[in-house]
């Protein structure tokens, strides 16, 4: 009788141990899945945010740097324009000027979005615009 009891007890304890290990793995999987979905949401938000600014810059009568400066972007010491979008994203616009053959100016640059926990930019969106001489 005693032997039967102890066998059952051992079986239950082994089942519980196995269950505990499975639970740990499952909870980690749930957390990873949730984090992935948040990352995915952040990526698409970042893309729309960058596209939104780029579209506005293209439609604006000003050159892209002037447009960004007139909309609350801050110029850093190294000439990069920066903007804080909400609590999570930082936008940066880097550009180079080159003289076009027709007398206009070519603004070659890119908008990059930085999430707070990552070192590398979340995405980089090239933004290049040519302005004729009379438009500037």
């Amino acid at each position, binding site marked *: 009788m005693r032997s039967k009891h102890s066998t059952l007890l051992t079986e239950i304890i082994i089942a519980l141990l196995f269950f505990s290990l499975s639970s740990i793995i499952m909870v980690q999987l749930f957390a990873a899945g949730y984090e992935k979905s948040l990352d995915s949401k952040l990526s698409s938000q970042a893309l*729309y945010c960058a596209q939104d600014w780029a*579209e506005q810059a293209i439609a604006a009568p000003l050159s892209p740097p002037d447009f960004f400066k007139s909309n609350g972007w801050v110029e850093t010491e190294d000439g990069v324009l920066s903007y804080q979008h909400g609590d999570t994203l930082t936008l940066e616009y880097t550009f180079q000027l080159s003289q076009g053959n027709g007398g206009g100016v070519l603004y070659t640059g890119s908008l990059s979005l930085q999430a707070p926990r990552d070192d590398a930019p979340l995405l980089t969106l090239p933004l290049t615009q040519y302005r*004729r001489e009379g438009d500037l």
Partner: protein
Amino acid sequence: MRQRTQHNSIGGLFMFGLLGLFALLSLALVVIGTQAYQNVVHISDSNNQAQSVLSYVANKVRFGDTAGAASVDRIDGVPVLILEQAFDDELFETRIYFFEGGLMEQFVPAEDEFFPEDGELLVHLSACAITQEADNLIKITLTLDNGETCAMHIALRSDTLSSGREGGSLCGVNIQPC
């Protein structure tokens, strides 16, 4: 004898307790899993809804973006995004608007009267505002079913080109792989 019976009942109770604990923990794991899954689905749904609507409207505008063809007008109090296209000398309009909780679209000859209820439902939304911020800039603001709001500007390249400024390039988005 009595002591032995008591010992047996304690052992049985202990095993019953262990089984109960096992059942409770299983239930807790299922509940946690369900909640996590619901959260993931909720995030993914709202993300997909916003993405698909904004992309659809933006692509429609870009597809029909010839000089003067895209505009926002208010017809019978309803803001309507109008995209004009000519087929065999006849002018047609694609009208995209928000009506009774849904984003609607209709493709009709330009001279046809506007009956908002005749449009085809694209997607259910809580609210949608389509505005023309400048001659060459359209803004779409969506409020999703979960209350989230997202907005997107669409620059009209054809108007930009016709006014003498060269359009910009937005191609080649580099997204960091997750």
